[in-house]
């Protein structure tokens, strides 16, 4: 950065924040309308599960689970009902007690259909007797902690759903200097992490301690955006010698793992690798609380904090929702909306997925349900041509050139797109958000990435076919 710019930046920081402190941040990104005031003062509230809960067999990155129960079986709260042998994967558990109605495909929030276990809720919430406290952190070895986490089916609750035990098991030869606790909550509308910090502080720190021990981290840094002053204060009061709070500028996508590491430690995770390459592991606030629960009570991940909100929602709030609870139940909990909704989003408005029907279940990665009206999320027809305004380039937090990437993907020049960083795109959606021509930039990048993955699979199949001497169909693709 030229010195002139540095001076201007420095000045603007002081002007913006009265010189109290200089919140850390990354280059790029965008300031949004947050609407967090709708729910930020609404305490977490337990809600009943729906009459039928739908537990998908895949709510994580990695291998899909195989069902461990069959139609007609009686299951209990916390009982493992699906598991996989694969290392990258996580078991699924029943969130209610009741009878297995069927194992069938269901429409999932990802927009895809997948197998799921439908359980008729008997309303008794009878807990599986095998659920017992796992002992004190001091007595557990790192290996034991990660085993508990795996068995509890814990995945990254920020939305990415990467299995947490894989994240915490750092490969031989790598050392974790910092465990970053991601409390940025940079998606607009969502406040469940904020409420969790205020209301479940003790469990949060318990979970952080366990995670730090599991991955062998030297230091813990809790990273909070400066729009949550009350949470920052509580975190600072709880922190002891090993742990520290870092205040971040409120800017999207500050909660992106790579952006967080850049802002807090000024380190960049090399392209195509994971954060432990630079000595960092990042976990989300909700994940830490789930870890605490799994150790303290032995209860696996069967419920999570969910913000149900929107300006048209009559009674928005933060809720503890059992996994598998369907949207129609949540609609009743918030008393519906003042006008017909246009989009119901699982997750935040920047990266979440819209659901098709109200019978889609809340899954492990559902950090919120955001209901938007037609005015708030207008339909975009044919976009205008790109006018090279450079907004996407200036705002891209991965420092890509989305305008050129879009053209490359659209023209199916995938090799060139790869060179220009297609796979370094974090799909935060900032480029599409800022585009005055309303182009579907990030949507193209998803298409391009899927096509690259399909290409890779085809090549693998070909290699396998060569090895075995058998002909394997190479058709398909997108």
């Amino acid at each position, binding site marked *: 950065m030229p010195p002139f710019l540095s001076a201007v930046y420095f000045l603007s920081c002081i002007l913006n924040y009265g010189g109290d402190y200089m919140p850390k941040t990354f280059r790029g990104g965008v300031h949004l309308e947050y609407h967090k005031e709708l729910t930020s003062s609404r305490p977490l509230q337990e809600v009943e599960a729906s009459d039928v809960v739908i537990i998908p067999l895949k709510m994580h990155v990695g291998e899909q689970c195989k069902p461990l129960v069959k139609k007609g079986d009686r299951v209990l709260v916390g009982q493992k009902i699906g598991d996989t042998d694969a290392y990258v994967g996580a078991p699924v558990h029943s969130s209610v007690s009741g009878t297995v109605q069927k194992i069938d495909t269901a429409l999932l929030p990802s927009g895809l259909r997948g197998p799921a276990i439908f359980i008729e809720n008997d309303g008794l919430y009878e807990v599986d007797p095998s659920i017992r406290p796992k002992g004190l952190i001091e007595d557990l070895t790192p290996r034991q902690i990660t085993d508990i986490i795996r068995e509890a089916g814990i995945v990254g609750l920020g939305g990415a759903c990467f299995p947490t035990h894989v994240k915490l098991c750092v490969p031989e030869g790598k050392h974790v200097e910092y465990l970053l606790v991601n409390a940025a909550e940079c998606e607009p509308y969502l406040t469940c992490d904020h409420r969790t910090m205020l209301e479940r502080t003790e469990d949060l720190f318990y979970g952080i301690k366990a995670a730090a021990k599991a991955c062998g981290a030297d230091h813990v840094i809790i990273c909070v955006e400066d729009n949550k002053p009350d949470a920052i204060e509580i975190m600072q009061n709880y922190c002891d010698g090993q742990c520290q709070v870092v205040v971040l500028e409120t800017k999207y996508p500050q909660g992106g793992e790579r952006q967080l590491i850049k802002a807090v430690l000024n380190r960049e995770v090399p392209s195509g690798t994971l954060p432990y390459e630079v000595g960092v592991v990042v976990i989300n606030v909700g994940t830490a609380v789930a870890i605490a629960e799994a150790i303290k009570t032995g209860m696996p991940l069967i419920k999570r904090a969910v913000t149900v909100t929107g300006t048209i929602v009559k009674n928005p709030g933060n809720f503890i929702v059992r996994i598998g609870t369907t949207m129609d139940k949540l609609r009743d909990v918030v008393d519906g909306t003042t006008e017909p909704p246009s989009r119901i989003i699982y997750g935040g408005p920047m990266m979440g997925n819209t*659901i098709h029907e109200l019978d889609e279940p809340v899954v492990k990665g559902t950090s919120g349900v955001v209901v938007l009206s037609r005015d708030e999320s207008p339909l975009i027809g044919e976009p205008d041509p790109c006018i090279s305004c450079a907004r996407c380039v200036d705002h891209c937090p991965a420092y890509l050139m989305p305008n050129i990437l879009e053209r490359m993907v659209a023209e199916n020049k995938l090799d060139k797109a790869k060179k220009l960083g297609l796979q370094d795109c974090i799909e935060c959606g900032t480029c599409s958000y800022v585009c005055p021509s309303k182009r579907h930039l990030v949507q193209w990048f998803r298409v391009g990435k899927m096509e690259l993955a399909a290409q890779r699979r085809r090549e693998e199949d070909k290699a396998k076919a060569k090895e075995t001497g058998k002909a394997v169909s190479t058709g398909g693709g997108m």
Partner: protein
Amino acid sequence: MATSELLTVASSPHIRDKTSVEKIMFSVALALTPAALVGVYVFGWHALWVLLTSIGAAIAAEVIWQKLRGQRLRVYDGSALVTGLLLGMNLPPTAPLWMAALGSVFAIIIGKQVYGGLGANPFNPALVGRVFLTASFPALMTKWAFPAGYVDAFGQATPLASSVEVPMSKLFLGTIPGCIGEVSAIALLIGGLYLLIKRYIDYSIVGGILGTVVVLSLIMGVDPLFHLLSGGLLLGAFFMATDYVTSPVTPRGRWIFGIGIGLLVMLIRQFSSMPEGVSFSILLMNAAVPLINRATRPRIYGR
């Protein structure tokens, strides 16, 4: 959340910024208005007719082209309005109306539509129109009108071509001969600052141009303020070099682009037979934009 209502299913992000191409174009037109109004005030009603003719012809050319080609009518995006207005402001106040119309049609058709319309043109369409007129009708393009009392004091040339020193206050307010839209520095600055504050234009291009002109003026031993305020420099720096389509998209590229224009302007003004070189400098740098974009690609995160 009535179940009877159909839900929209779409790829994220589900919210979009409120800026749009139209909003940007109309803001640029609004920002140009003060300078255009001063032009009309200084040079009289004929200047207004020149502006209206060039705007009308630009819009008409766009509509007719899109109709003939069976394209979606995009004239509402305001880009033809901006091109027409900019071209009009780049004409001398004595320009015959047919010439204004011809320039606009050329700017829209040859400057923009033949490349594929909005977003596809390599050169600033208004400047293409102006340079076309300068090459075709050199006499008409340099026939200046004079604000009252000007000729007696300073002779019949624009300040840059003149040998007599023109007071700075006249340059600021615009009571000098020149193109309709380029004479009033103060009005151009108001419009330019408005666009900068709204972040519709980028400070690095403007800063690159103006900074280079100041530095080179000092090196060459000429008055930097005079060079900043005279000729079409402010009009070009704030409103034409910053045209999105024809300027680089990378942060470093925009600095290089601006500095390149400033350099060319001073070289042309000091060493060529032309008194004024903003249009040619911008067009030359327009041609270098793909090269600049390629050479200044940002380093990707983690690479």
